[in-house]
């Protein structure tokens, strides 16, 4: 019998992870780990998250300090380079690196300075939409009844307006279309998605026992909403908002391309893409580089959103 015991013990040892690995998770376990902390642990090891956050970080730095990346001016053109300006790919970072556009302006410099419009539109629209959408969704979901019915129908009406078409109509009514006008037009129609996500999350969460428990303690509506419902409902909203951010950037480019968004002299990738299309036969690079930048940016935000979604998904834990 002792033999049997030994065999089993030996088998056990063979299967057991190396004992050195044991204390590590043990130490980890003793720390306080919030759900966000856990998600962060997950994100740190996710290559998609790492790639996308590096990209987004670079974009943010470019937005804040474009002059760090190029000494060339995006608006000054030298017609010497007109249609002569084939990219000199060897000279990384130089004025002529990515060639010149039809007016002899540096494509590279325009790329760098155009980042600001795209990123500002993306981030501002997302922030506004998240705030408005969250508040609307929270009120509708938490109070229910008539309030919910009214807010939900309003949401449905806005949701029914085709996003780009609606934005075009809004933009048409402005004579001067600055970045802020574009932000307004996109946010005006974009909040419905967040409202719906928030409302759904709140309806689920308000039935959770911890909300009942807070009510049983005598907590007021404000405390319940801010301490209990909002922190738990934010996760899906953040995911949706991050993914939507990429969408707003491409919407801005689309509107600018159509000539309804930003327009020269404002520098934006959409404006350049629009200009590039006209010269696609002679100078493809004018179209190519802003398009690549746009795709990369949108991709980075969508990847970030997906990574956050996976990290927060309770099913995987």
């Amino acid at each position, binding site marked *: 019998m002792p033999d049997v015991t030994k065999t089993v013990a030996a088998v056990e040892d063979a299967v057991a992870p190396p004992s050195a690995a044991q204390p590590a998770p043990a130490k980890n*376990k003793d720390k*306080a*780990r*919030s*759900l*966000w902390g*856990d998600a962060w642990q997950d994100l740190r090891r996710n290559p998609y998250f790492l790639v996308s956050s590096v990209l987004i970080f670079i974009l943010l730095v470019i937005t804040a300090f474009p002059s760090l990346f190029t000494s060339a001016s995006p608006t000054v053109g030298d017609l010497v380079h007109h249609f002569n300006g084939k990219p000199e790919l060897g000279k990384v970072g130089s004025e002529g690196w990515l060639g010149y556009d039809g007016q002899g302006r540096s494509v590279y410099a325009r790329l760098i300075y155009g980042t600001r419009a795209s990123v500002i539109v993306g981030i501002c629209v997302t922030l506004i939409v998240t705030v408005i959408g969250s508040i609307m969704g929270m009120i509708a979901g938490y109070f229910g009844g008539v309030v919910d019915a009214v807010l939900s129908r309003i949401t449905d009406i806005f949701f029914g307006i085709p996003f780009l078409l609606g934005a075009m109509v809004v933009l048409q009514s402005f004579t001067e279309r600055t970045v802020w006008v574009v932000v307004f037009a996109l946010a005006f129609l974009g909040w419905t998605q967040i409202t719906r996500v928030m409302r759904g999350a709140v309806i689920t969460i308000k039935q*959770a*026992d*911890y909300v*009942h*428990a*807070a*009510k*049983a*303690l*005598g*907590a*007021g509506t404000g*405390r319940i909403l801010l*301490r*209990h419902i909002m*922190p*738990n409902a934010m996760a899906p909203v953040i995911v949706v908002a991050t993914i939507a951010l990429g969408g707003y950037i491409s919407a801005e480019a689309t509107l600018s391309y159509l000539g309804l968004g930003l327009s020269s002299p404002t520098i934006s990738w959409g404006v350049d893409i629009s200009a590039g299309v006209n010269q696609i036969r002679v100078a493809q690079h004018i179209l190519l580089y802003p398009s690549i930048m746009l795709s990369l940016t949108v991709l980075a935000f969508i990847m970030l959103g997906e990574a956050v979604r996976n990290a927060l998904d309770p099913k995987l834990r």
Partner: protein
Amino acid sequence: MADLGKKDEAVDATPNVTDVETVDAATEAEAVAAIEAPVERGEPILQVRNLVKHFPLTQGILFKKQIGAVKAVDGVSFDLYQGETLGIVGESGCGKSTVAKLLMNLERATAGEVFYKGQDITKLSGRALKAVRRNIQMVFQDPYTSLNPRMTVGDIIGEPFDIHPEVAPKGDRRRKVQELLDVVGLNPEYINRYPHQFSGGQRQRIGIARGLALNPEIIICDEPVSALDVSVQAQVVNLMEKLQDEFNLSYVFIAHDLSIVRHISDRVGVMYLGKMAEIGTDVQIYDHPTHPLHPGAAVGGPGPGPGSPRQPRADHPHRRRPLAGEPAVRLPLPHPLLEGAGQVLHRDAAAGDPGALPGPGHPGGARIGVPLRRGEGRGPRVLTRGT
């Protein structure tokens, strides 16, 4: 348990409960004062009278038309005495959890009263309601959903003090929370951890600590151990009994596990189809059931009898003897949904065979005419009002 004056006497139950000495508070301050007043051991502290909760069933989106009602709770009355544990058992859908929510004022009652120290809490608001909240707390069934996953244990147990700042001065709270953790058998150093770092039994202890924080007089326990592992259930039951003695608590203990209810309760109420079918001491209910729900129920629970600590297990006393037929099995929807199902059953019963009924039960156990079950191929039985 404590020797409660009324324990061994016949306790009148639905609908023959004692009269309520109501307190007419003219002002909010008077109401609060009445709520703060202590209650003698053995005196009624919570008196529930004809509590009704119907959930309307509506049709239509814009113009809602009520087409019926789910009678979740349909006229429940009982008294809870200071220091006692009143068990409430019943099958799923019998309305026992709704009763808990009504007692906590988490749902608005359709009709009926809940008197706490003579004041109808269903009609209170403002400061008086807040004072009641401090004195009646709840422990929930599912320890995984009853704790906010984004708050630390310290925040969860400390939240009652944020809501009722008068209970503990700000600087004192951390110490209080750690004391509470200690009381429920958790390491006080866990104060900064999050709920998901604990097992089910530990989470339930956190929930109990939160319930205790405000030093309440009554704790409503809605299936507090049924989500826990078998080996942990006994620990939590013991803890709750210990706390009852220590803090002089009264419990309403709702559960479907009859053996645990019997163990912890001084009196047991049996709910069926939204009504309190029977209420009495555990001996009255389990050993002389007047309600055919029990043959299955009562046998299912208790372990071996006295004097034979292990032997009877060979005869597997734990097994639940089948109760022929399933409640409301022929009814197309869960029973409380049926408008008028009761009437149909009553009519059937009149034509049925009253001889099949168990004889009049022990004196004093209150019985009311509640439809019991619709068996497969058997006439439904009904109990008529007892002696």
